[in-house]
């Protein structure tokens, strides 16, 4: 397999179209966020502000449903995952642009960040000892399986998003080549739905992994919070 060619170089770094598109998305998101939030009204929110607040509250509520009391902690990371992946998936619909999530480098980077986030938030919630102890539970013999699970789910996270988006673009291209202009609208609708579903799946899995890490560390502690333990069924791998 070959990687994308570099469009230009910044010193020793070869800048690919994926990075350029990501920078564009970052610029759009940051500028849009700044424009949307620079004049927030406390008492008389407009339609756009109401929609923005509703979206942020919906993300926060989704996190709170999984991890009560941790919404404000995880909102930036999980919310940005959903937002960035959704836009990155949808940007492939623009002629001449390719989805950054159709590049394995991007999905691997996101999967690595989720992997690191699981441990980061787990250690923050339970501490080093308690968090590392859960790898030995219920038996130290299961430690290799725990490590294998960590690697496999991270790999699955990266490959799932990459494979879906790349195959979606490829399938759409093949359908368009075969059927011409007869089926562009259904294919575009399928692309939109698939892009949003994949973003939701990636963000939700990340949230569940992080919640599992925080909960497993708390469960191994004698003074584990019952609310956190009862809110999560346990550390599970997604199907």
């Amino acid at each position, binding site marked *: 397999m070959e990687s994308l060619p570099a469009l230009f170089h910044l010193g020793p*770094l070869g800048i690919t179209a994926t990075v350029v598109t990501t920078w564009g998305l970052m610029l759009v998101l940051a500028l849009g*966020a700044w424009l*949307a*939030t620079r004049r927030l009204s406390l008492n008389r929110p407009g339609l756009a502000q109401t929609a923005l607040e509703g979206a942020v509250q919906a993300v926060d509520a989704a996190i709170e449903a999984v991890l009560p009391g941790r919404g404000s902690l995880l909102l930036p990371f999980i919310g940005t995952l959903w937002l960035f992946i959704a836009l990155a998936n949808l940007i492939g619909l623009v002629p001449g642009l390719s989805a950054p999530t159709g590049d*394995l*480098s991007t999905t691997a980077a996101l999967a690595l960040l989720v992997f690191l986030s699981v441990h980061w938030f787990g250690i923050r919630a339970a501490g080093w000892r308690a968090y590392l102890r859960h790898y030995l539970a219920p038996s130290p013999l299961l430690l290799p399986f725990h490590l294998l699970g960590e690697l496999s789910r991270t790999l699955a996270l990266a490959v799932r998003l990459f494979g879906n988006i790349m195959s979606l673009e490829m399938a759409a291209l093949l359908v368009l080549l075969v059927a011409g202009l007869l089926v562009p609208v259904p294919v575009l609708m399928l692309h939109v739905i698939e892009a949003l579903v994949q973003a939701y799946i990636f963000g939700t899995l990340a949230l569940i992994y992080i919640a599992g890490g925080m909960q497993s560390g708390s469960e191994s502690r004698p003074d584990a919070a019952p609310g956190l333990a009862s809110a999560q069924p346990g550390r599970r791998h997604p199907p």
Partner: protein
Amino acid sequence: MAIDWTTFTLEVVNFLVLVWLLKRFLYQPVLEVLGRRQAGVAHTLAEARRAEGEAAELRAQFERRLADWEAEKASLRAGLQAELETERGRQLQALSRTLGAERERQRAQEDHQAAELRRELEAQALLQARRFATRLLSRLAGPELEGRLIEVFIADLAHPPGDESAPEDSFAGLDVSALGAEGRARITSAFPVAEAQRQRLAAALTARLGRPLPLDWAEDGSLLAGLRLTLGPWQLDLSLADELDAFARSGNHGG
């Protein structure tokens, strides 16, 4: 497709930067506004609860005051009712007294009217009787009846003053001296008086008055029968007309 490690590294950095940017420009402002709004709502709710509590307190206070007012009103109403009852009793007593006095006055007025009516009826009866007697006696009157009346007059003059056997002392208040030396007596009769009877009448009159008086004789048919003696302002009648008048007057004065 292979992983391009430069792209991989840049994407890691890009995402972390994006997380920071969105946290700085999206999540924090929105969450801050939401938090402030929630705090404002909580503050408003607290104010509303406080106002509700104050309203409840004011309501309770008002109800207590209202109850006090009701009690005071009931007390004042009872006092006023008692005063009204007292005043009503007093007014009823005054009205009863007034009605009693009015009834007495009405009864007195009715009695007076009844007495007046009775007197009027008596006067009418007497008047009728007088007319009837006048008509009857006018037919019976004549010189003979007049002669007998003159004889009765002479007999009355024959009774000395203070004699209780006399039917009526008609000369009791007569003061002959008041007539003076030139005083005259006038005798009016319905029919001409015989000369012999005139002399006996003059003699009886002189004996009674104590001195002789010159007599003037006259006739007046309205007397029906009998005579009238006039001595200056003093006058004495013994005639049917005079008796009938006395009879009629007795009804007016006797009643």
